[in-house]
Structure formats: structure tokens, C-alpha cells
């Protein structure tokens, strides 16, 4: 039974910032939706409301960072890289300032529709020099990422998770820069996942293992830099191929990063990229969209079947039986069903 951690970022940020007086939080008028209300209540003098004016927020943060403060910007991911890209590049990334961008609602994981879906953030941001890109996949990632930021003087983008977050990895095995985690070993295929797709993939690989398919599965949390020897090695010994799976377009993100490594090192392959296939999406519940865009557990099973030319006759029930019981079943609808509204 896997632990479910309630709002790991919220409390962690407050505890971590306690003895770090230079840490400031800037809010883009989404305080309640980005888990910084507690920070605001605890350190009101270090919390700054920037309203709905993201260009100004980004450049302003650059000014604060030039003076030695460490601003943590909290808003939805789309409002950190789309609205203020020029400011992010020229006021923050070019000068290589210690600014932390905490972006919520990764990929299709939002009730908000196309304007709120950060489906190309990694692609856009991997093309920006000086920026480090981290993506959270579980509660341990979230709880330990703030410590990791201290190793990185330049700007960092954190693709953040909120609400109840499953713990997939031991609480004491902290996230490390440019270091993937081994989720499962095997030599038939290699699988590299990031963010939510890691938990999506776990029941699929488990069910496939029962059918005799041994998959080496890595969870990647650093999208830039992307030079982890473990990833390279995993790709190199990839058996029948390498699958990448991400809550993002197939272009520009994890899949492209792996492709670059494969092509330059001439290792492994062929590559099968799972993700959103170069399209915008509608607004709907996360599970619905994951299924529609082919990045849920069953889609992974189908992909493996196609690659291997087999049919394992796995059903949704088989997958559910394997599923790390992240959510108490009774709560599944409550949490993810589109019937239950959440404020954004």
C-alpha cells in the first residue's frame, strides 16, 4: 500500500524556508491553487502578491535575485513560460539569476482546458540556456527538491505536483540532479518516464512482467541537463527498443532528449515516443485525457504489444489489480472525476 501525502509542497516550503530569510514567495494571483497560503500566513513579510501580470512578475523576480534574494514564483506552469517567455529569458535566464519557477498543472493535469495545459513547457524551456528543468514524479521528489535547488545557482523550473501526491520512492532517497531512479529492471525493453507517467507506467510494467515481459524502467526528474550515465546505459541495453512516456508533447521533451542521446551516441533503439502527438487538447478530466491521448497504463501495454507483436490480453481489471493503490478507491471519483469541480 503506497502512502499518499497531502500537499507535500505546502508544508515543505514553509519548513524549508524557516531559516532561509532570503527566500521569498511571489504569487501570480493563484495562492490557494499553488499551495502557498500557508507560506503567506507564516511569513507574510516574505510573501508578495504580484496580481495577474506575469511579465512584470518575472522581471521583478530578476531584480530581487540580483540583490541576493531567492524568489520562488508560484503560478500555473503556462503562466510562467508562455505569457512571460521574453522576461524569463532576458530578465532571468540570460543573467543566470537564482530564481525558482514553481509551475503547477503539468501537461493535461488540469481542469482548465487548453489555456491551462502546459503541454509544451519542457520543449520550450529546454531551448533556454542556463535554465535547469526538474519535473516532480512523486511525494519524495516534491519533498526533497527544495534541498536540491541549493546546489544550482542558476534559474530552475520545477514542474510541480499538488494536492494528494503518491509516494513512489522511499522518503529518504532524495531527488538528485541529473540522476534517474530505477523503478524496475529487465532486458526486453527499456522504458523512461517522467512526472505522472511514472505512476501510470508502474501497473503496466508489473502486469507485463507476469506475462513474461521484463522492462527496465527509469524515472527521470531532470530534463535539463540531460546527460545521466544511467539513462545512457539503459538506452544502450534496450533490447527490443526504448519507450519514452511523458505528460507532454512528444516533441521537445523527454522523448526528444532521449532521441538526441541515442542519435549522438548511436546507442539502442528504435525509439517509441509516447506523449501528446503534436496537438492541443480539450478540457476534461485527467484520466479521460490520458486515455484519449494514449498516455495511460493501458496505452503503454498496447505499445509494448505492438513492439513485441504479441497480445497479452490484459484488461483494465488486470491493471487495476497491479495498481499501486494510490488513491483509496472510494476517493478516486472525488479526486479525479470531472463531476467533482475543483477551483483551478
Amino acid at each position, binding site marked *: 500500500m503506497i502512502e499518499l501525502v497531502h500537499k507535500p509542497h505546502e508544508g515543505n516550503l514553509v519548513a524549508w524556508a524557516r531559516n532561509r530569510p532570503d527566500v521569498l514567495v511571489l504569487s501570480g*494571483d493563484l*495562492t490557494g491553487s499553488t499551495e502557498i497560503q500557508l507560506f503567506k500566513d507564516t511569513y507574510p513579510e516574505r510573501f508578495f502578491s504580484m496580481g495577474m*501580470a506575469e511579465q512584470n512578475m518575472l522581471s521583478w523576480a530578476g531584480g530581487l535575485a540580483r540583490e541576493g534574494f531567492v524568489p520562488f514564483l508560484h503560478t500555473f506552469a503556462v503562466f510562467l513560460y508562455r505569457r512571460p517567455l521574453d522576461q524569463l529569458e532576458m530578465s532571468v535566464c540570460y543573467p543566470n539569476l537564482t530564481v525558482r519557477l514553481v509551475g503547477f498543472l503539468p501537461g493535461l493535469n488540469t481542469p482548465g482546458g487548453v*489555456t491551462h495545459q502546459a503541454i509544451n513547457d519542457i520543449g520550450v524551456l529546454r531551448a533556454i540556456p542556463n535554465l535547469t528543468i526538474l519535473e516532480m514524479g512523486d511525494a519524495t521528489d516534491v519533498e526533497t527538491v527544495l534541498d536540491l535547488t541549493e546546489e544550482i545557482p542558476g534559474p530552475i523550473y520545477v514542474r510541480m505536483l499538488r494536492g494528494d501526491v503518491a509516494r513512489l520512492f522511499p522518503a529518504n532517497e532524495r531527488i538528485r540532479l541529473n540522476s534517474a531512479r530505477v523503478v524496475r529492471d529487465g532486458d526486453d525493453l527499456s522504458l523512461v518516464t517522467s512526472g505522472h507517467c511514472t505512476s501510470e507506467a508502474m501497473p503496466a510494467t508489473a502486469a507485463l512482467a507476469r506475462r513474461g515481459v521484463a522492462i527496465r524502467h527509469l524515472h527521470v526528474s531532470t530534463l535539463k541537463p540531460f546527460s545521466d550515465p544511467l539513462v545512457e546505459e539503459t538506452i544502450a541495453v534496450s533490447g527490443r527498443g526504448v519507450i519514452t512516456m511523458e505528460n507532454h508533447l512528444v516533441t521537445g521533451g523527454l522523448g526528444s532528449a532521449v532521441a538526441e542521446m541515442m542519435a549522438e551516441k548511436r546507442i539502442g533503439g528504435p525509439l517509441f515516443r509516447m506523449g501528446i502527438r503534436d496537438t492541443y487538447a480539450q478540457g476534461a*478530466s485527467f484520466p479521460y485525457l490520458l486515455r484519449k491521448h494514449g498516455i495511460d497504463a493501458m496505452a503503454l501495454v498496447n505499445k509494448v504489444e505492438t513492439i513485441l507483436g504479441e497480445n497479452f490480453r490484459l484488461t483494465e481489471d488486470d491493471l487495476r489489480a497491479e495498481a499501486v493503490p494510490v488513491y483509496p478507491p472510494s476517493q478516486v471519483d472525488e479526486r479525479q472525476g470531472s*463531476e467533482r*469541480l475543483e477551483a*483551478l
Partner: protein
Amino acid sequence: MDTEGNGHRAVTSFPPGRSNTWPDQARRMAREIRRRVLELTLGRDGCYLSQALSSAEILATLYTRSARLGPSLGPAVPPAFSGVPGQAGVRHGQGAAFNGPQGSDYDRLLISPAHYAVAVYAALVSSGRMAPEALDQFNTDGSQLEMIGAEHSPGFELTTGSFGQALSQAGGIAMANSLRGSSGRVFVFMSDGELEEGQTWEALQCLGHYRIDSVVVCVDVNGMQYDGATSEVMNIEPIESRITGFGGIAVSVDGHDVTAIERAIRQTPHEGRPLVILCYTDSARGMPMLAARKPKLHFVRFRNDREREQARAVAENWARTG
């Protein structure tokens, strides 16, 4: 300008025998908007209710009287979402069909703050442009009635969930109208939080520069945004002088007074300048039980059975007096 208002309105949803002066119609429509959104708030355990409470009269005035809109070309019950523009056969702006045909005889109505969608859907129902049962689709998987409306959503024409982009697009549409010699006006419904976005001012500046006076903006100045009161989160006052400085004509009105809104739109001289009606509103209007929660009313969920009962009583009362 057609000061007699909109001859194409479908008002058949109003019981016969009731007063059919347009202000009465509009007030009934406002009540129905509130009721339907309140019912959804109860049924779905949370909704963008306060936006309906603050904007009901603005939307009702636009739909009932001020905007010349033809009868809906959309189906009474919208079909499932069919794809994003660019996919086979899917064109941009399909939600506009519910606002009727486009052309020189008609105005356009563009919704900017996309989280007001539920209020817009309710306005479509209460103006007979959509069947009441369409609202059952609201925010369900595969429906076009998304919680944050986009251009396929009924009553929408633009994809404006990233705020502050509609006014510029309205400018392009208005400029196109004038290039083509079309006389229709372009109404833009905005929220006050959007006034914080720099793009809003770039747009107004450009409308003023090109002396485009076919754009009429109605702002729901409910004094609040996600985090609370705009005055606390990021002050936007004095809005009137900001707008005047950027080349617009601003009029402030009681945003719950349909005749005041209508008059401001119809009577304010604004030759060569875009007209901006600042509709000062109350985000708990009609539901005093919510007043204590102001200005934190961006998303409303009732907290306990007592609240839900109270709310249900309000809805029933509105239904009776509807």
C-alpha cells in the same frame, strides 16, 4: 444605430403573460442565470457562482437588448467535442453559432474571462439559445461546455482562458469589419482582474490609436480576483482615468441595473474611441449568505448541509419568481 434593440431575440422561454418590456425580461434572465448556476453549484458541489451573481445583469442586458444578435444557429443540445481546430473539418470559433449569424446586420459578443463560462451557458439557456438540459453536460468529459470555456464552447468565439487576450482580438475583428465596410459592433465582456494584464492596455492603446469606436467593452468590476480584493492583490483603480488616458471613454454604472447598463451603452458619445462600461457589481448579489466570504469568493463551494439547505431555498425562490 438601432436604438430599438434587437429584433431577433428569442424570448420564447419567458412565460406569456409576464411583462415583456425588455428590462423586465432582462431582470428575469438575470434571475434565471443566477438560479441555474446556483443549481449547478449545488449539484456539482462547487462552481464559479459568484461570477454569475456579479455578471447576471450585464450578460442579460447584452443578450436581451444591447447586442444585436440573431437567433442561435447552434443545436439546442450541443454535440460532443469534435476536435481542436486544425483537425479534420474543425474550424475556429464554432461556439459563436449560439450567438447567431455574423454579418453587417449583427453585433458580436466576445467573452474574455473564460471562467465565466457557466454564467454564459446559463445566459444561453435563459435566452432560449440552448436547451436547459444542455447544462447537464457542464464540465463533463467530452462535452463542449467546458468549465473554462474555449472557442468551441457555446457562446464563446475565442479561446481566452489565458486572460487579457480577447480585447486585442476584438480589435482585429473590428478593424476587419471596418475594412469590409461592415457596421456591426464588437462587444467584449471582461473581468476586472484582466485589467492588470499589460496586454489589455496595449489593446486599448491600439483601439484608441486607430479610433475604433465599434468596440464596446463591459467590465464586471466585482472588485475581486482569485486571491481576494483587487485593492489588496494588485490595485487597478482609478480604472476610469486609466481608460481615459489610454484613449477610451469610460462610464461607471451600477452593474446590477439593467437600464443603467443599457443607457450607458446606448447614450454615451464615444466617437472615435472605444467605449468601456465599468459595471461595478457585488459578487454576492442575491445571496447575502455569501457576503461574509467576500472578497474570497472566486470559487464557491457550500461548506455544510446548513449552507446547502439555505442555498437550495434561494434557488427555489428564484425558480418560483422566475
